[in-house]
């Protein structure tokens, strides 16, 4: 299969869905004339014209709110927010409007709205441009939360998102845009709520999403050299969450490591851990390990930034702990 970049896969999804459905449109800062800060929307203005591809002023609450309104009126907006950090300006529209509309209207009102944005640390963009905020959306009933780790999932999930009637927080990662992978041409759909086993293994289950998937895979490769076969499970969508695949994997391996870039306190990893211990308590041979960001804003200094988010070695160490391999033993090995 041809290999394309994550950002190209996203563009292809938008392009195909705009072609397929005249109700799909996209707004965002610099997404039209300039093709977007991550070049996801390059070429769309030329192809679909200024009605359906629009630049906006710097007004995140307004953009998101207008998107939600358009969705309520039956259109299918994509609102691109440059950094997930800036989505905080539009939280009311997400939390109190988009997420609640369906219930508040007794089911009649639907909000086929997609917010695309990106998060994650790396490159010294500091505390206000580096967060991983999926937990905030995850906690709000009514929002779907999608975090693709590879180009094929990016395309398939975005196409699926654009056919849903509920608001979708589509969270990309700044470090994945230029990563490449095989992506089917044309109609390629990845349904929500279906985890993907990115690497099979029998000794320990590593659950990771977004940019932590490549990191978990590196760790798994390193663990394999020690004879440990880690299974890497990528939920792909956090809401809905594919509990079945996670629990089935843990039932096989009896050990779980959850890796998230977001800070440890109150992250999605905690929730997944709470589910595993609740539903697979008797499967577990060791405490569930959570590898997560430190409980701090991301520092500018590159070394400190690196120290603030999980690295390959952190995952390896956690897997060993889950397998009761003492640091001593490792050192001796």
């Amino acid at each position: 299969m041809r290999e394309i970049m994550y950002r190209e896969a996203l563009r292809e999804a938008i392009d195909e869905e705009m072609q397929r459905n005249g109700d799909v449109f996209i707004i965002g800062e610099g997404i039209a004339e300039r093709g977007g800060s991550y070049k996801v929307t390059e070429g769309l203005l030329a192809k679909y014209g200024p009605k359906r591809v629009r630049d906006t002023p710097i007004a995140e609450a307004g953009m998101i709110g207008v998107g939600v309104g358009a969705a309520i009126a039956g259109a299918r907006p994509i609102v691109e927010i440059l950094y997930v950090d800036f989505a905080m300006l539009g939280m009311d529209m997400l939390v109190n409007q988009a997420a609640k509309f369906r219930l508040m209207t007794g089911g009649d009102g639907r909000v086929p709205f997609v917010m695309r944005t990106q998060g994650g640390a790396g490159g010294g963009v500091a505390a206000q441009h580096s967060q991983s905020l999926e937990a905030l959306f995850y906690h709000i009933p009514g929002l779907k939360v999608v975090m693709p780790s590879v180009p094929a999932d990016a395309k398939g999930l975005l196409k699926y998102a654009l056919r849903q009637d509920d608001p979708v927080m589509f969270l990309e990662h700044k470090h994945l845009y230029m990563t490449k992978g095989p992506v089917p041409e044309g109609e390629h759909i990845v349904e929500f709520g279906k985890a993907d086993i990115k690497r099979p293994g029998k000794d320990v289950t590593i659950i990771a999403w977004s940019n932590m998937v490549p990191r978990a895979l590196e760790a798994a490769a390193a663990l394999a050299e020690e004879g440990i076969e880690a299974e890497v499970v990528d939920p792909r969508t956090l809401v809905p969450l594919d509990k079945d695949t996670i629990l089935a994997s843990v039932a096989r391996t009896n050990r779980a490591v959850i890796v998230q870039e977001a800070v440890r306190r109150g992250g999605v990893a905690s929730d997944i851990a709470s589910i595993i211990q609740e539903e697979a308590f008797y499967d577990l041979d060791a405490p569930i390990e959570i590898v997560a960001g430190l409980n701090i804003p991301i520092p500018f200094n590159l070394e400190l930034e690196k120290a603030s988010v999980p690295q390959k070695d952190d995952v390896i160490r956690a897997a060993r702990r889950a397998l009761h391999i003492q640091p001593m033993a490792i050192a001796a090995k």
Partner: protein
Amino acid sequence: MDEAAKRNAPSREFLEKIFRTAYRIRVFETEGIKLYRQGLIRGYFHPYLGQEGIATGVCAALQEGDYIASTHRGHGHCIAWGADVKRMVAELLQKESGYCRGYGGSMHIADIARGNLGANGIVGAGTPLGVGAALAAQIRGSDAVTVTFTTDGASNNGTFLESLNLAAIWNLSFILVIENNQYAVSTPIEEATRDPDLYKRGLSIGVESHQVDGNDPLAVYHLTREAVEKCRAGKGPILIEAKTFRHMGHHVNDPGKYMPEERLAYYKARDPIDRARTALIEMSGADKADIAAIEAEIAAEFAEAVGFAKESREITPAEFREFVAAY
């Protein structure tokens, strides 16, 4: 007949429609408050009493296919938009036959199918939502106009600037109607902003903006009509500030003691229902009996709605479980 002539000689049918709408709102609120005091309605109830002229005049200038978005004080907009009073009362009584099946209540009544995007419990939120509907209409090439009813309070909120500015740069068919009732709960507008003439904020970002007596349903209607026509001709958005005053406190349980008596008296003397009634009598020749018949009919309609709502059932646990499963 040109607009000016029409203005001077509106049809009896039209005047009756205006009076009926305004009066229907008045009855709904007055009787609704009684239901509230009987404990039949829970949560918040923000009466539209005194402001009926605005919803009435604005909605009379709109047509099918248009959209409205409303506020926490939303019953009047809903009624003026032609909602079924039965389903409104049922919603307030948290019944399955209500507009939101009892899930929403007073602050969330919506009628999506007919283009009412709903009341809103977040002050200011209706503005971006309305601009969004106008954007959807523009993208679809429809000539629909969207009106957001908003408030003096919401005009000091960031959504006001952000969304009206978006509507402006995109030339959307959007009309923002500020119901300036001069209070946000107990805070008078003079304490909330230096310049209580809110239409100026539209001018400052290049939006055609007007001020009107919100207690005069016909004046509101005529101004809105012009605005609607301009919007349909691609000359939107337009801002309308309608000055008005509540007839009582902020919600059912607020005595509203902070409202100066003379000011209240001034506005009560300019009651929009009286003006609609007087217009109907003076401009179309309707007599007292005609009026009495209409009023009786509307009272009966409300009584019937209460009966309907009381007899309606609530959502069952099984239905609820099914609903929850979607989350």
